[in-house]
C-alpha cells in the first residue's frame, strides 16, 4: 500500500484542497471550503438552496480521526473502507487524471524541452481470481523511446505547470493518439508473451461448471430453457477470463 500514513495523507490532501487543517490530540479539525463540503458531505439540498438564493453558503467544520477509539458523534472516523475514504478516493482519482507539466529547470540559454507521453495503466486479470497491477509507461514522442516505471523516474525531477524561462518546446513527431496506441500495444505484447495459468484454471472451471449444468438440465425436463440460460450467464460472470486495461492517469511531460 502506498498510502502508508493515512493521518499525514489527510493533512496533505485537505491542505492541498485549500482547507485549513488543525491537529489536536484527538485528530484533525478541518475547515472545509464550499467545494469540498459539497464533494465530501452529503447535503445536496443545502447547496441547491444556497445556489438558488445566490448566497455564499457556510461550509462545515469537519472533525475527523483515523483512530477508531477517538471517534465519536462529533468526530468522524476515517479509515480505508469507510464511506468518507471512498469519497476522498474518488475525488483524488478524478482530480489527478490528466496533466501537462514542464520540468523545473534553471537555465540561462535557450533550451529545448522534449515531449513525453506518460500513462499509468491498471491491468486487471479477472477470472475466478482477480489480480491487478499498475504499469507506468513513458514514451518519447520524438524518437519513440519507451521507459518502464515512468512514475518513479518522473518523481526524481521537479515539475511546474508553466514553461520555464528560456525554454522552448519541441513539437511531437508522434501524435498523442498514436503514442498511446504504441504504449497499449507494448502492454498487450507483454501480456501475449506471458503464461496465463490463471486464465486456464478459470476456463477449466468454467467448462466444468457448464458440464454440471448441462447434466442437470438434460435430465430434468421440468426446468425451462430460460432458467438454463440464466444459470449459464451466472457461471460465465464468475469464471470467464478477461483482461481489462484502465488508465489511472496520464499526460504530457516536457523535459530536457
Amino acid at each position, binding site marked *: 500500500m502506498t498510502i502508508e500514513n493515512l493521518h499525514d495523507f489527510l493533512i496533505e490532501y485537505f491542505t492541498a484542497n485549500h482547507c485549513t487543517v488543525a491537529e489536536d490530540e484527538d485528530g484533525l479539525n478541518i475547515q472545509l471550503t464550499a467545494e469540498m463540503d459539497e464533494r465530501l458531505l452529503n447535503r445536496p439540498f443545502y447547496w441547491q438552496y444556497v445556489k438558488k438564493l445566490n448566497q455564499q453558503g457556510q461550509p462545515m467544520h469537519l472533525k475527523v480521526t483515523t483512530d477508531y477509539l477517538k471517534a465519536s458523534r462529533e468526530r468522524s472516523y476515517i479509515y480505508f473502507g469507510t464511506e468518507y475514504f471512498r469519497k476522498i478516493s474518488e475525488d483524488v482519482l478524478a*482530480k489527478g487524471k490528466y496533466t501537462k507539466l514542464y520540468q523545473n529547470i534553471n537555465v540561462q540559454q535557450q533550451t529545448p524541452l522534449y515531449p513525453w507521453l506518460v500513462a499509468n495503466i491498471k491491468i486487471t486479470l479477472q477470472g475466478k481470481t482477480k489480480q491487478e497491477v499498475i504499469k507506468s509507461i513513458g514514451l518519447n514522442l520524438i524518437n519513440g523511446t519507451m521507459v518502464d516505471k515512468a512514475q518513479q523516474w518522473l518523481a526524481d525531477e521537479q515539475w511546474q505547470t508553466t514553461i520555464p524561462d528560456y525554454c522552448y518546446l519541441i513539437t511531437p513527431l508522434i501524435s498523442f493518439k498514436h503514442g498511446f496506441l504504441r504504449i497499449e500495444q507494448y502492454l498487450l505484447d507483454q501480456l501475449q508473451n506471458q503464461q496465463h495459468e490463471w486464465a486456464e484454471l478459470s476456463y477449466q472451471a468454467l467448462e466444468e461448471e457448464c*458440464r454440471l449444468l448441462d447434466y442437470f438440465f438434460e435430465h430434468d425436463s421440468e426446468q425451462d430453457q430460460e432458467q438454463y440460460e440464466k444459470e449459464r450467464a451466472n457461471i460465465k460472470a464468475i469464471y470467464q477470463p478477461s483482461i481489462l486495461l484502465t488508465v489511472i492517469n496520464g499526460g504530457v511531460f516536457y523535459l530536457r
Partner: protein
Amino acid sequence: MHIELTRDQTFIDCLSEKLTTNQPMADWHEFQRTYNMAQALLVPESHTLKVSEQIKHVNFLPHQLETAQTVLDDMNGRAILADEVGLGKTIEAGLILKEYILRGLVKKALIIVPASLVNQWASELHEKFFIRTTIARKKPIWSNEDIMITSIDLAKREPHRQEILAQHYDLLLIDEAHKLKNHQTKNYQFVQALSKKYCLLLTATPIQNKLTDVFNLVTLLRPGLLGNQRTFLKTFDRGSKELDAELKRLVQKVMVRNLRSETSLDWTKRHVQTVPISFTEQEYQFYHDLEQSCLQDFNTTKTLYLREFCSSREALYTSLIKEQSNQSKQLVQQLEGLPHHAKALKLVELIKTINEKCIVFTEYRATQVYLQWLLKEHGISSVPFRGGFKRGKKDWMKQLFKDHAQVLIATEAGGEGINLQFCHHLINYDLPWNPMRVEQRIGRIHRYGQQQDVHIYNFAIEQTIEDHVLKLLYQKIHLFERIIGQLDHILAKLDVDSIEDEINTIIGGSRSIGEIKIKMNNLAAVIDYMQQDQEEISEHDNRESS
C-alpha cells in the same frame, strides 16, 4: 480458450481534447496523489484479504477470516455458511461482501433476511463494514439501489417480484436459508430464478431432516453438483458408508461449517439443569382426564392438548374453546376451577432466586400473556417478545429488557437472530420437541461476546409427556453435549423425518404411558447406538487424515 479484452477507449481522446483546448490540468502533486491512491486501492494477490487491511476497528476471529478466505478462493463466492449458532455467520458474510466490494467484483447486491432482522443486518453491515444498505420499505426502487435488504415476503410479492427478477445481482445473500429446503415452494423457485453471480446461503441448521434438503440447498448454488433430483436419491439414499463419505466430500465443496468445539475460542460454559415440577393433585386429576378423553380421533391433537396443559391453563383453554363438543365444554369448566399452574409458580420462585436478568421461552402465546401477568402480580418486571412484532417494536423491546426489565418472555418466533449476550440465564419454560430450536434458543445468549457462564433451566412436569420427552431428548441422547449435525444425519438414516413427528406418532399410537415409555426408550437406544458408531467413524477419519 478465449480471453475477453477490454481497452480504455476514452482516456486518450479526453487528454487530447484538454491539450488542444488548453484546459487547466493537474499539478504534479495531484498527479502523484492519484497514482498513490490507485496503488492503495489495488486488488491484492489472492490468498490475502483486502478487508483485513482496510477494516481495523473490528477484531475478526481466526475462523471468520479463514471462512471468508475459503469462500473466496475455493468456492468462488457460492457457498453455504453453516456455522453453529453464535459463531458469527453475519460477520463472515459481511467480510465476504466487503471483500468483493473492495475488489470491485460486487456493486449490486440483494440481501434477503427474516423481516425481524432487517434492521439488525443494516446496522451491523454499517457499523462493522461501513457498507451502506437500503432497507426495502413501502415503495422500494429495486433498479436504483446498490445494496438492498428485504424480507422474502416483500420481495416475492408483485410488483416487486417481477422487478427483482429483471435485475442482475452481483451477490445474493440469504439468511436463515434452511427455510428454502423445499424446491416446490414459491420462495425456493423465486430464489432459483434470481439472476445472481455470487450467492451466500446462511443457516445454522443446514441439514435439518432430509437428504433432499441438502440436495435442494446445494442445487441453488451449483446446479448439477449433486446430479439431479432423481439420480441424487438413487445414488445417495442407500446409506452406505462410502456413499456418505462421497456426499460429504461433495457438500464440503460448497459448505463451511465451524463448530464451537473446533474453534480455539474460550467459550464460557453451559450449565444445564432440569427443574422437575409436580402438579397438584387436582391438576394431575385433570391431566389424567384429558388423557382419557376422546376429544377427537386425531391423536396428534390430543398430544397437543396435553402439551398445552403442561404449559398453562390458558394455552389449553384457547384450543379447547374452538372445539364445540360437550366433552370440551365440560373440560373447560373443570379447567376454570383449577388453581394457578404449578409450573408458573415455580417460575416465579426461580426468577426470584436467580435475581438477575432471565429469558423465558414458551411455545404458547397464551402462556406468555399469563406469565407476564403473574410476574407482575409478584412485582417482577417483564417484557414480551414475539415474532409478529414489527421491526421497530422488537428493537424497542430488546432495549427495554436491557435497560429496565428483569425478564424477557419470548415465544418461539422470537428465537432467531436477536442477540442478548447481556443476559446469562435462560429458562425453557416448555421445551420444543425439535432439537434445533432448542439450540437456536440457547444461541441467543451463548454466543461470542458472552462474558459469563450461561445457565439453562429446563422445566418439566413429572409424570407427563413433557417429562418423557425431556428424558428422551435431553438425558438419553445427551442432546446438549453432542453435535447436532450428527443427530440430523442419524435421523436421515433412520428415515425419520423429524424427531417431533416421530414422538407424536409414538404417543398417538400408544395406548398407555407404559407403551409410550418403552417406545421412546427404544428410539433413544437406537439413536444412541448410531451416534457412538458415528463418532467412531469420525475418529477414524481424523486419524486417517492426520
